[in-house]
């Protein structure tokens, strides 16, 4: 029995070893939970989109509410120009949300608790946003690093800071999600371990903590998906509407 709280983050192979050349791309438990999350999203939304009644049923309402939620988020933060990127941000939000939420099921695996997964998503967003910015504004996109209304003396310093903050975006975006998920799950595992080690007499306190943490973690799972999506919108807003 794994009393090690980090044991839950182990990635292991499911099924045969798949190799392309020297590279191992075997199907793992991480891939399994990605598939489960994606299939759940597709099934749920497809059920919600299939029947179009004037008064929506529960599943349809859920699909339409999530659609409206994301579309409002995008139009509020990035304006109407961001409409072509709606499907991407919607998929991103739903994927992260469902991965986080499936991670809340005991004995399951949290895809987003791995830095490599969140980093790939964040890097893709970072590169995509940068490309969009340069395509929209050409070299004028570099004005992003030169805020207006700054004294000339301070300008070199400000530009350096702006460039560093811009380049650290993918790291902060990915680490925020990964660290939140990992810390939360580790905490829960640790408290779960206390329940066992303190036994029937003293186990109630960590158990109540564990229960409270579960609620908190569900909140965090939603919140981090929301933060991930809204930061993507903000970065997209920078690329689409150059304000500086």
């Amino acid at each position: 029995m794994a009393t090690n709280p980090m044991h839950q983050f182990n990635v292991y192979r499911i099924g045969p070893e798949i190799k392309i050349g020297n590279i191992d791309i075997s199907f793992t438990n991480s891939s399994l939970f990605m598939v489960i999350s994606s299939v759940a999203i597709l099934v749920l939304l497809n059920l919600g989109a299939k029947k179009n009644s004037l008064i929506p049923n529960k599943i349809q309402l859920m699909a339409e509410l999530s659609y409206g939620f994301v579309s409002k988020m995008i139009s509020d933060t990035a304006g109407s120009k961001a409409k072509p990127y709606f499907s991407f941000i919607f998929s991103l939000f739903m994927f992260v949300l469902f991965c986080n939420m499936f991670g809340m099921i005991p004995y399951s695996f949290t895809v987003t608790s791995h830095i490599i997964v969140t980093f790939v998503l964040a890097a893709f967003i970072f590169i995509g946003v940068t490309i969009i910015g340069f395509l929209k504004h050409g070299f004028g996109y570099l004005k992003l690093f030169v805020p207006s209304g700054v004294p000339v003396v301070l300008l070199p310093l400000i530009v350096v800071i702006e460039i560093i903050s811009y380049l650290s975006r993918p790291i902060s975006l990915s680490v925020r999600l990964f660290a939140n998920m990992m810390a939360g799950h580790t905490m829960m595992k640790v408290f779960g371990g206390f329940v066992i080690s303190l036994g029937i007499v003293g186990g109630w306190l960590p158990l109540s903590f564990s229960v409270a943490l579960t609620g908190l973690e569900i909140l965090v799972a939603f919140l981090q998906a929301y933060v991930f999506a809204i930061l993507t919108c903000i970065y997209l807003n920078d690329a689409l509407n150059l304000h500086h």
Partner: protein
Amino acid sequence: MTKKFVFYLNLFCFFTFFKVLAADEGMPQLNPEFWISQIFWLTLIFGSLYLLLSKLILPKISNNLEIRKSKIAENIEAAEMQREKSEQKLKDYEKIINNAKNEAKIIFNQAREKILIDINNKKDSLEKEIDEEIKKVEEEITNLKNKSSEKINKIAIEASSDLIKQVIGADVNNSNISAIVEDISKKNEGKGYVN
């Protein structure tokens, strides 16, 4: 007491946490063994999720929302039209009622006037008849009065001639008597009748 306990529990938890982190296994996240596999499957699964959502499902949902929006707008429009219609109907109804009231008033007034005229006519004709009757009666009365004096004269003459005959036993000329009677009656006339 409980506060102290919670504090020590937290402390214990804290140290265990770091002990575990420092253990042999460390963080599986930093083990690059399955990094390529995760990147590959993430790209594949997220890519297909994105494609399926953007090509199949999201257009359906947005279409549904559009249809609902337009339907609701249509319904609101229809409701607005119905409301206008009903207001028009109400106005028409009020107009009809007013017209009917006015007509009724006119008819009532006409009828009243007619009746008043009728009543007046009847009254007039009745008064005329009554007047005529009164006149006739008065004439009769005057006639009677006039005739009565003559008759009285005659009666007086006859009576006096009879009396004279009885008393004297001789015929007296009627003309003499009548002259005397007329004389007396003329004297009385001067005094006027006492009715």
